[in-house]
């Protein structure tokens, strides 16, 4: 261990390169050579790439654990090279963007999950995708995904994270549309990609805002300069007044022209949250995730449940120090999370496709995570990321195992995933059942399981936490001529906020327990409904079993469903065990919370901005347990005792409600009408404009004019060389005339500050010159000479006239007088600017122009940044809207 620690010093922790690059190599080899290498080699390459990456992650984690002894955050970093430099604000200078990776407690844990769960799912996929002709392509994508995800979580700055962010988006798109010959899958891939674009826009805006207001894009720099984000930023009106507002009634104009502000933190926070909502499927951008289940099931487990979709939560945790500066963003995030949890759960109630149920369940659980981080419980939210990765991956893989068996007889994607065709599977697939049940008890919050602890922690924090305003008094004032005026009031955490969020959370927990139990009872209990089981059934011989369509009315016969092979059950067993046991990483109820202690330094600065109320533990615990009991008990009564009769009668009673929920509240249709159709009609309008305005007026009119001119000029274009020669003779005549006439041209060059000017005559064919430099009306010399320039001194505000005569080779003479004026005011820079050169303690040399006093950039190392002046939030030092308003003097 010590040898390893010596080999990888914290400042140059190149083990990160091993972790990140191995999956990239795997992706390259499998993608480029995979077809020729064959299945065995592809399997070996893919598994070893991720497996070694996992082992390296464990080593890195242990090294970090060894190094992080006190409460200070330890960060291992490795810089590959400086990628580019962007210019920041004028007082900040350029911001280096380095391809750098760093490891701290947060992403070391996350890397373990990504590579560990990733490895298990790779192993599972080697069997699941066994018969697929594009085996190598699948593993190339999967390795590329692991690489991108590692870049995302290990990147040391937002631009590097963004590269990974886009990389996982790309892999997600490729893998959703993996079976792209089906139109539906390709469309789902496109949908995921396009919806994510909207979120990426937010992330890009956030980066630009951070670069401008903070002057840094790396984690240390952002955290060090975050106090600058408390400055108010003028949003409206753009410029000084709204154009044409003077034609409005006075009241309206005044209302319209009232300056409106937001703190930089709110702007950055909302932009970042838009990005997170896109990637982590929150309202309003959640619509892509359920469709993303069109990809192979291991992909759903890895990307769309365990890792990629939690990237948004990871980003919020990573930027927690920025988020807590804006209670408005935090409250929005928590509310959106809670509402997403409810909305997705309500849809999951009525779906029959087991992957759809799990997909909406994922959206719902992601909502829980946002509820957690939104109330400032970052480690609780992150803990739920962890447990969710285990139990949701287990659920998806278990569902995949069931689908794998169903698909052997029902060769139809939709029908083989329909839970109405399943039932009683616990007899046929014991391992799958046991592990699925383990994950199920975790997600419904059975006391003692991982899901119970993580959900309970989130609910507790929702009940107790609130985010106070980061600025005393909750308002920003400004000194004006009328005295001190309040220019903006900050958002205050509402008093009912905590109870409201808690109630939504409990309601979601009840619903989760209910629909997940419905799913499990439907798959594993009851009678098998897929086909009539014949003991010695043999599959009729056919070439391509995907060809003949599935007919739901046809009575199928088939063999007894089998358990899946070990490659598929082993990951299930591991993940099932983790689903049950991982809760003890952070069991606050039992006062065992190693994870919290481990993450404490990371969220240290954010935690100072979170208010935690006392008590409520027992109440929340009781509510959580009863939510589990009510939900599960209700499902047991409805689907086990009454065999689903209450559900059917409910549907008969409220058919419209069922219809709406089944069709996902018609959100897709609404988006289609509102967004897609408006874009289409905009495109139509543009098309019409192009056709009639551009083509009609611009193109046709231009063409007509050109044609007219052309038909005139065509008369000259005889096509005979002799005619052209004749025209050339005319041109030679013109040129001869120009040479024959003298041209007296002169230009003045000079120095206004010294008053020395020089008049220079233009040269020409056989030219001779004579001058009248003193302006007395007499020529300085009688004869023409070769002197081409004269010098003269001019006083301030004086005008002198120089006369010049030119005689050319034909003896013709031209004359010109050149006035030379020296301006009264001295426009040249006066004194010499002095630049003070200062040297920082770390050796950086800076030039400072006295009076401009640019504040230094936050530095990249771990040292605190004392050079930056502290910010006094109550009274902004400069009126906003002026240049440099963000930089405290």
């Amino acid at each position, binding site marked *: 261990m010590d040898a390893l620690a010596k080999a990888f010093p914290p400042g140059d922790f190149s083990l990160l390169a091993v972790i990140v690059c191995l999956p990239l190599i795997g992706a390259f080899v499998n993608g480029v050579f995979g077809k020729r290498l064959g299945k065995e080699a592809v399997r070996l390459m893919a598994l070893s790439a991720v497996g070694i990456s996992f082992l390296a992650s464990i080593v890195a984690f242990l090294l970090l654990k060894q190094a992080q002894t006190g409460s200070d955050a330890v960060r291992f970093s490795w810089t590959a090279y400086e990628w580019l430099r962007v210019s920041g604000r004028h007082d900040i200078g350029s911001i280096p963007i380095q391809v750098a990776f760093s490891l701290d407690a947060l992403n070391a844990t996350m890397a373990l999950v990504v590579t560990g769960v990733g490895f298990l799912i790779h192993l599972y996929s080697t069997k699941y995708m066994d018969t697929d002709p594009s085996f190598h392509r699948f593993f190339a994508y999967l390795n590329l995904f692991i690489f991108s995800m590692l870049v995302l979580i290990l990147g040391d700055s937002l631009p590097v994270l963004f590269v990974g962010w886009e990389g996982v988006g790309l892999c997600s798109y490729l893998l959703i549309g993996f079976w792209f010959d089906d139109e539906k899958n390709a469309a789902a891939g496109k949908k995921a990609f396009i919806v994510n674009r909207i979120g990426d826009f937010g992330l890009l805006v956030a980066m630009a805002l951070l670069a401008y207001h903070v002057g840094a894009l790396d984690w240390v720099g952002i955290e060090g300069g975050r106090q600058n984000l408390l400055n108010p930023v003028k949003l409206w009106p753009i410029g000084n007044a709204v154009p044409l507002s003077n034609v409005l009634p006075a009241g309206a104009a005044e209302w319209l022209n009232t300056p409106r502000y937001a703190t930089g933190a709110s702007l950055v926070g909302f932009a970042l949250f838009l990005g997170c909502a896109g990637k982590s499927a929150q309202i309003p951008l959640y619509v892509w995730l359920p469709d993303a289940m069109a990809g192979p099931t291991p992909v759903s487990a890895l990307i769309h449940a365990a890792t990629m979709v939690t990237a948004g939560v990871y980003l919020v945790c990573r930027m927690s120090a920025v988020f807590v500066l804006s209670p408005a963003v935090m409250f929005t995030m928590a509310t959106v999370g809670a509402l997403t949890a409810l909305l997705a759960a309500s849809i999951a109630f009525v779906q029959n496709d087991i992957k759809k149920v799990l997909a909406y369940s994922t959206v719902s659980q992601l909502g829980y995570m946002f509820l957690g981080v939104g109330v400032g419980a970052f480690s609780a939210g992150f803990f739920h990321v962890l447990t969710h990765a285990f139990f949701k991956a287990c659920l998806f893989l278990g569902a995949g195992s069931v689908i794998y068996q169903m698909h052997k007889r029902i060769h139809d994607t939709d029908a083989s995933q329909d839970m109405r065709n399943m039932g009683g599977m616990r007899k046929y697939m014991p391992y799958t059942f046991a592990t699925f049940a383990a994950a199920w008890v975790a997600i419904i919050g059975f006391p003692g399981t991982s899901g119970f602890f993580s959900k309970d922690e989130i609910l507790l924090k929702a009940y107790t936490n609130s985010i106070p305003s980061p600025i005393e008094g909750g308002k920003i004032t400004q000194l004006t001529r009328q005295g001190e005026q309040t220019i903006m009031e900050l958002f205050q955490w509402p008093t009912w906020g905590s109870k409201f969020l808690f109630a939504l959370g409990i309601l979601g927990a009840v619903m989760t327990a209910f629909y997940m139990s419905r799913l499990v009872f439907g798959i594993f209990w009851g009678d098998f409904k897929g086909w009539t089981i014949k003991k010695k059934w043999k599959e009729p011989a056919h070439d391509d079993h995907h060809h003949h369509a599935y007919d739901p009315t046809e009575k199928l016969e088939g063999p007894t469903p089998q358990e899946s092979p070990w490659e598929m059950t082993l990951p299930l067993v591991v993940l099932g065990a983790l689903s049950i046991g991982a809760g003890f990483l952070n069991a606050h109820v039992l006062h065992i919370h190693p994870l919290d202690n481990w993450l404490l330094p990371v969220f240290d600065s954010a935690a100072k901005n979170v208010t935690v109320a006392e008590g409520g533990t027992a109440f929340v615990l009781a509510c959580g347990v009863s939510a589990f009991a009510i939900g599960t008990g209700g499902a047991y009564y409805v689907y086990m005792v009454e065999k689903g009769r209450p559900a059917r009668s409910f549907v008969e009673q409220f058919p419209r409600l069922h219809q709406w929920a089944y069709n996902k509240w018609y959100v897709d249709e609404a988006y289609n009408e509102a967004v897609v159709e408006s874009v289409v009609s905009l495109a139509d309008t543009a098309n019409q404009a192009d056709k009639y305005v551009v083509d009609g007026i611009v193109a046709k009119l231009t063409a007509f004019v050109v044609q007219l001119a052309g038909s005139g000029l065509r008369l000259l*274009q*005889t*096509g*005979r*060389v*002799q005619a052209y*020669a*004749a025209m050339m*003779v005319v041109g030679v005549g013109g040129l001869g005339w120009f040479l024959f006439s003298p041209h007296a041209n002169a230009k003045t060059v000079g120095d206004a500050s010294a008053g020395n000017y020089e008049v220079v005559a233009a040269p020409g064919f056989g030219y001779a010159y004579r001058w009248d430099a003193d302006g007395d009306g007499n020529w300085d010399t009688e004869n023409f000479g070769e002197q081409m320039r004269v010098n003269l001194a001019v006083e301030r505000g004086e005008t002198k006239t120089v006369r010049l005569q030119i005689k050319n080779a034909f003896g013709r003479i031209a004359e010109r007088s050149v006035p030379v004026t020296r301006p009264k005011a001295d426009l040249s820079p006066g004194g010499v600017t002095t630049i003070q050169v200062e040297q920082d303690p770390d050796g950086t040399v800076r030039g400072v122009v006295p009076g401009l006093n640019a504040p230094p950039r936050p530095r990249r190392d771990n040292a605190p940044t004392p050079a930056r002046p502290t910010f006094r939030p109550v009274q902004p030092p400069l009126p906003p809207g002026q240049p440099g308003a963000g930089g405290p003097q």
Partner: protein
Amino acid sequence: MNALGGFVEHYVLLASVLFTIGAVGFVARRNALVQLMSIELMLNAVNLLLVAYNRAHGEVMTGQLFAFFIIAVAAAEAAVGLAILLAFYRLNASVHSDEADALKH
């Protein structure tokens, strides 16, 4: 020294006459061979002028260098020009440059 050829102007006059003869020959004659020879005449006239002026300002020999390069270019021009003439003749069965009006059609 009032002799013929003792002043630059004599050469300028001679070169102008030669150049004008060449230029008129180039535009007035239809025979492409004669036109090419006219071009040579013009180039020679210019060479003469360059050398004469170089003689008048005799400190350097830049004018002679120029004339040297013009001779090189003239040789290249003659070779390519005659090759084009041959191709043209093969196309049109004629060396008359006023037959070269394919551009118009």
